[in-house]
């Protein structure tokens, strides 16, 4: 496990150092930045795992802070990196953002947290809600000193007893992100739906919840026929509060939720999808100028509408004097991203939109191969899930017998949504009419 954990600023200077094992001199951290730079590529992404002189550096980067764990053992790298992830989650929960400044401001509490979250380099408890119960920013007198919450060592380590709300409510958000990779010919190379059920729980006491979905496997195993469509989820992962063995045996999702916001489960469907928003593009590159024609099409039901659509089209980073013309929406050149962004506030299903763009280019350019980043698209479509997943019921049982209201929302959004650009047409005269 970890010998020590460091938080570094972008220059590699330690902000926080917590040595757990004493088997690696603290000066070893000075080698981290040089090592990272050595193995870094242009985009500034160094390997997350590096070893030098028997010391292994595992790291994550969170805004302008590096979180680094050092070890001398053949440690489980996955576990340690996950711990660093959790560390950043806890810090975010405590300080809103992880920045050099918030770290400096809170070093005492960070030391306390590090002491509690990891003992001798072995991760212990990383549940922010529980930690906040006994490690707080408020100062305590010893007489009213907090005791370790029961939850720390309980089977239910994520919820404390005695929570009370006047109005008991649960909000469920079913969010589906569409990951899509499309080649220039319009063929979908890979696509999947990454679904998540997020909850906001405002419930008193220790409620038992049971969630029913239109899960195909469950319908099949219980011999019931589904009313309407059932969804076959390829892989499901649950928050630790869900009883996994129960799910394994009869596919029921039962759990005692943590208080407040959390992600109950994620699921994945590996289906061949038609791109919900499909962009066809023609690029013409000539001496001194480059022209684009983009046709966007909303390929979903007419009843639905995509909101806040952004189509981000990359252009050469030395392009200038943009000219745009579009049938709907607004277009802006974003030179800092080497792209122009086409925003469509509302894009109704079945509709098409056209955009023409013209850029000037310096007449002398180097011949190095151009980067050809893909077009990326952002959107969200409310009241709609691509997979057709539905929450059939959410049963809430608490021994006090209160009534609680579950609220459910559905939304489909873009995930990693990339449409590769075709090669620019360079010869044969212009085919695109001038704007």
């Amino acid at each position, binding site marked *: 496990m970890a010998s020590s954990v460091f938080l570094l600023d972008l220059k590699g200077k330690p*902000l926080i150092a917590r040595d757990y094992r004493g088997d690696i001199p603290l000066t070893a951290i000075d080698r981290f930045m040089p090592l990272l730079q050595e193995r870094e590529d242009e985009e500034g992404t160094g390997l997350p795992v590096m070893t030098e002189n028997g010391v292994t550096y595992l790291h994550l980067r969170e805004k302008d802070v590096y979180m680094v764990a050092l070890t001398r053992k*053949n440690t489980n790298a996955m576990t340690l990196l996950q711990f660093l992830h959790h560390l950043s989650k806890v810090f975010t929960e405590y300080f809103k953002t992880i920045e050099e400044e918030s770290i400096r401001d809170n070093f005492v509490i960070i030391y306390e947290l590090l002491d509690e979250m990891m003992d001798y380099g072995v991760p212990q408890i990383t549940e922010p809600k529980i930690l906040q119960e006994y490690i707080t920013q408020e100062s305590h007198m010893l007489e009213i000193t907090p005791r370790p919450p029961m939850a720390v060592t309980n089977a239910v380590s994520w919820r404390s007893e005695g929570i009370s709300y006047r109005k008991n409510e649960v909000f469920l958000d079913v969010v589906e992100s569409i990951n899509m990779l499309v080649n220039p010919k319009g063929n979908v*190379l890979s696509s999947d739906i990454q679904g998540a059920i997020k909850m906001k729980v405002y419930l008193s006491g220790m409620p038992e919840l049971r969630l029913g979905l239109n899960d195909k496997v469950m319908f099949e195993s219980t011999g019931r026929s589904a009313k309407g469509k059932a969804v076959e989820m390829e892989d499901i992962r649950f928050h630790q509060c869900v009883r996994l063995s129960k799910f394994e045996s009869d596919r029921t999702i039962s759990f005692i939720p943590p208080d407040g916001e959390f992600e109950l489960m994620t699921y994945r469907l590996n289906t061949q999808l038609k791109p919900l928003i499909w962009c066809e593009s023609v690029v013409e590159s000539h001496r001194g100028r480059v022209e684009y024609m983009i046709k966007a099409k909303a390929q979903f039901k007419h009843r639905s509408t995509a909101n806040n659509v952004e189509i981000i089209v990359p252009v050469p980073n030395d392009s200038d004097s943009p000219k745009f013309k579009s049938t709907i929406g607004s277009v802006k050149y974003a030179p800092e991203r080497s792209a122009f962004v086409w925003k469509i506030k509302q894009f109704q299903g079945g509709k098409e939109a056209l955009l023409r763009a013209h850029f000037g280019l310096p007449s002398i350019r180097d011949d190095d191969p151009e980067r050809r980043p893909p077009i990326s698209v952002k959107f969200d479509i409310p009241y709609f899930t691509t997979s057709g997943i539905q929450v059939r019921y959410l049963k809430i049982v608490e021994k006090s017998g209160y009534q609680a209201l579950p609220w459910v929302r559905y939304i489909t959004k873009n995930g990693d949504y990339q449409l590769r650009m075709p090669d620019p047409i360079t010869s044969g005269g212009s085919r695109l009419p001038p704007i």
Partner: protein
Amino acid sequence: MQGLEERQNYMLTFLAPIWKVHDLRAELTSEKKDPRGQRKKVAMKKVVANMTMGNDMSQLYQEVIACMSIPDLEVKKMVYLFLINYARARAEIANMAVNGFEDDVNDPNPLIRAMAIRTMGYIYVDRVIESLIDPLRHCLRDRDPYVRKTAAMAVLKLSMFDRSLVEEEKFLDMLKDLLADGNPSVVANAVAALTEISERSPHIKLKLNMKIANKLITALNECNEWGQIYILESLMYVVPQDTSDAETVIERIMPRLQHGNSGVVLVSVKVIAYMMNYVAQTETLEPILRKLSPPLVTLLASGPEVQYITLRNIQLLLQRWPTILQNQLRAFFCKYDDPIYVKLAKLEVILSLTTEENARVVLTELVEYAAEIDVDFVRKAVRSIGRIAIKIELAADRCVRALLDLIQTKVNYVVQEAIVVIRDIFRKYPNRYESIIGTLCENLDTLDEPEARAAMIWIIGQYADRIDNSDRVLATFLDTFLDDPAEVQLAMLTAVVKLFIMRPTAGQDMVPKVLKWATEHVDSPDIRDRGFIYWRLLSTDPEMARAVVLADKPEISAEGERLDMPLLEELLLQVGTLSSIYRKPPCTFIPFAKKRVLGASEALTRLTIAPPPVSRLPRSTSVMNRPSSAKQQQQQQQQLQRTTSSTGDRDGLGDPSGSSSVQLSASALDVTNGGSGGMSNPYINDTAAGFMQGNDAVLIDLMSMDDDEYGGDSSAAINSGGMAGFNASFGLTGMNMASLDPAARGAVGAAPDSQVLNSAFDAAGLDALASVASPMARLSGRSGSPMPDLMRQFTSSFDLSSGAITGSTSSSMGAIPSPMGNLSFSQHQQPQPVSGSTSSLAGMAGGAAPYGVAANASSMPALLGTTAAAGFPSVLSPTSTVFNIPTSTGSPFANSAAISGVQGNQQPLSAPAAGNTALLFSPPSNNNNTTTAATTGISGGTATAFQKEVDDLATQMYNSGFLNTAGTGSGSGTDTGAYVAPQHVLLDAQQTQGLEILGTFARRSGGKIQMEMSFANKSTMPIGDFAIQFNKNTYGLTPSGSLGVGTVAAMRSVEVTLPLTLGGPAQVMQPLTNLQIAIKCTAGVFYFQTQYSLHILFDETGNSDQGEFLRMWKAMGDAPTGSRTVQRLRFSSMEEMRNKLNMNNVFTVAQRAVAGATHFYTSSKLVDGSQFYSEIKVANNFQAAIIATKSTAAHLVPLYQKAIEDICTAF
């Protein structure tokens, strides 16, 4: 509000200059009114802030320790932090704090008790440790679980400080008791502590029985995510005693794959993969593997760091369980913004998942990647295209086209990379893509990287006779010869010699120049040696030079990056750890790391599931249980372990030139010196064979590096190279002892030798040897029964020179035949299909791949030969090497063997038969050949940068070695040269719901006509009740026995030989050799048609004398004479060609040499009495032959000539 104020206050002060120590001291000791310690708290914060910034605050220890009494938790925590920081180094600080600690461990608040215990554990100072022991004992039994779980970790800390103390004080027992604690987080911490203590301690070995395991698994449900990880990790210490144990664990852990924490998921995968080694039935494994795939794909949706670790581990899992992640290829396509390390790791996985079916999609994707701008990524994408061409024959054309397109882009590094992989493609598919050489040559000027230059030079040299201006092209490289790196110089040297041999006039100016430079101006001993060898070769026997230099190359394979099985097995026990990421055993980068092995148990099966056949080669028995007993396994494992450790150091150094190479370069020098002194024939003879023994192991070693070059992961491959040698030693001994023909063994006296060897090994070694012997025994045992062609040739090659081979075997003793050695281990291993090979031998040897070695990847295909027709030479030749390979690493005996080589006619004690062997092995008439080959080999062996060329030379050597043996042995080995067409697909699995049949026709000794088939069941259901029927055909071919296929279980295959006779109902078919066949089985009835090569109908009595030939030739004077031109004969001597034809019942009546060519006159007779008389004009360079035939059955002439072409070109 107070907190906020304070924070603001603090921020201001923080930005102020660093506080002086004395100011802080004043603040800490201030007498001002401070009832709640708030002032001191601010002061303490400043102290900690200073400490964080690396300023030494230790002088304040007295004041700080005084603050321990302040009743404020935050202050206390800061004091503890101060102590952890400084007390370790300064005992006086620690000693002073002891009293404070003693108070705190008795505090009523569990939080403070736990904190005190936790902090004391961090301070390795005698006094503190002493005062920790008693409270710790109490805390381990504290009523509060929070204290107990903290105390468990304190025991771990204590054990790192003083291991014996923990044992003396019975803390370990207390920890064990905690395993039964009612609180899951206490159990988890106790498990974590115990696991780590046992990992570090040399004499504590953690072993959990199923009872404890079940309890722990039950606790899983209640632990937090970290606790689950510790418990899951501990399950790796459970050794299932029977298969149901393993299945129970797997079943109970399966739900964890759904956990939200990637750490939990991956550890679960590790435990399940471990337990799968103890499952007895493949039927159980399949659903498990299916369930493992989705969670692994889901892990790819996480951050890049998690993706990276996942991908590295997927690559390992894929090697062990090739069916995992089937149809998930697209999940591994690279996203534009993936970090480069993720992209590179994805590429590897993509390559592993590429099959015939999806090759097209993959290729399109790779071409896309090749257009990106990251140089590393682009290079690897280009390289991957080449690897796919080599791995999947059907995709080769498309890959080559893609590479050509890439070359047209003129992007410098793309072109260079493409040329390097095209060389490999040329190696794999000779004579198929020469048409693109022109395009390649357009880019000569841009090549500035040594590897690309060497590759280009190799291509030009190899095809010197096809490129019109090859001499001029090579000459352009000449100018820089002396400045080029060794790699390029070596390539140049060989290319120029090739040019000279193929086009003497074109090369005659260059050769002396280059040879002179190589031998006089170059410092590298490798180049010098090779220069000398070529020189002597060219000056003494140009014909032999041709045989050596232009001999066939061993086939290369795309599997070079595969890890060998023991390493893979070890790494799979380390899933998720650094070791799995680096693909190195922990002991190579962590001092004193304990080695993990699969625990021995009755239940250990190491089952695997056949991969979806990548190429048309399902001739492997898909599932093989390890037949040897558990005890033997363990012992074998010990042996293997020793191997790994012996090669481990090298690994760490990352130096590809192992000690062996160095050693050999010395002996190489000896040779050349001796040689220049004028070698007498017998002397050469002895040395030659001796040297051959002395170097092949290293050749193998280098070949592994060679492959490694494709694979990229150098350390693993080097490691395996060493391993090859070591494993092999068992193989050899095994053969000595049991497998060879007893008479032969007795004759040469192998028995005493093996005894010597035996005595040197401990009992464990012996057991391993015994078990190793069995596969060989099986090999030879099968020679009597119908068997596939290669196999038969293999055994018959034994026959014809069994004395010689046995002799050399016994003499080389510690000498280590690598592929055979692996063969022996492969016995309990699942054979992998090896592309291009077709025999059951292939199946067996291919099986070595998982256990075996990157080295095999290159040597093995050579063993197998490209096609069945390649049969004799390429089979026998590597075999002969096999019997001669000593290694200079790994075994003490190897050295002696090597020495025996160096000293030639002396007979070292350990190898009494060395001299004899040499004599037997290489008949005197061909001494030069062997000598040169061997010495060539040596120089190859010394090289570190040789790589490809070494392969070439190795084959050259093999082939020339073969020629000798074949020449003398042709009389006795009737079957050895019989041509058998490569098996081809008769029934495609896609048309038949999973049944794939491959087959070919052969004529075996005594005129037995056979159909040799392989039935592969690629469905998930067993298929049985096979029956076969032939439709009426031209010659009435019909099965004369039953089809001996029983039931073929799912994902398995069976090989059968179906004897045929000619008495069946006849009906003229079009084409004449067409056969319509029906196969009935439980999967249905399938019809297909195929054609056989006419040669299976050539009668053994077709020989006629010259008079008869002339008479018939004249008699048929007016008969139409068919004429056919055959390109690129695969012979290197006329004698060889004659023998080959004779063996296939095309009898040479006469032969005469004319300028630049030789004319053969042959006769053959078909079983129906049709007679064929041919004149075959062969160019002396074997580039082309013209066959003119007259026949009593003129309509058969085209088929007849086709058959001859096949025979002549197919090896």
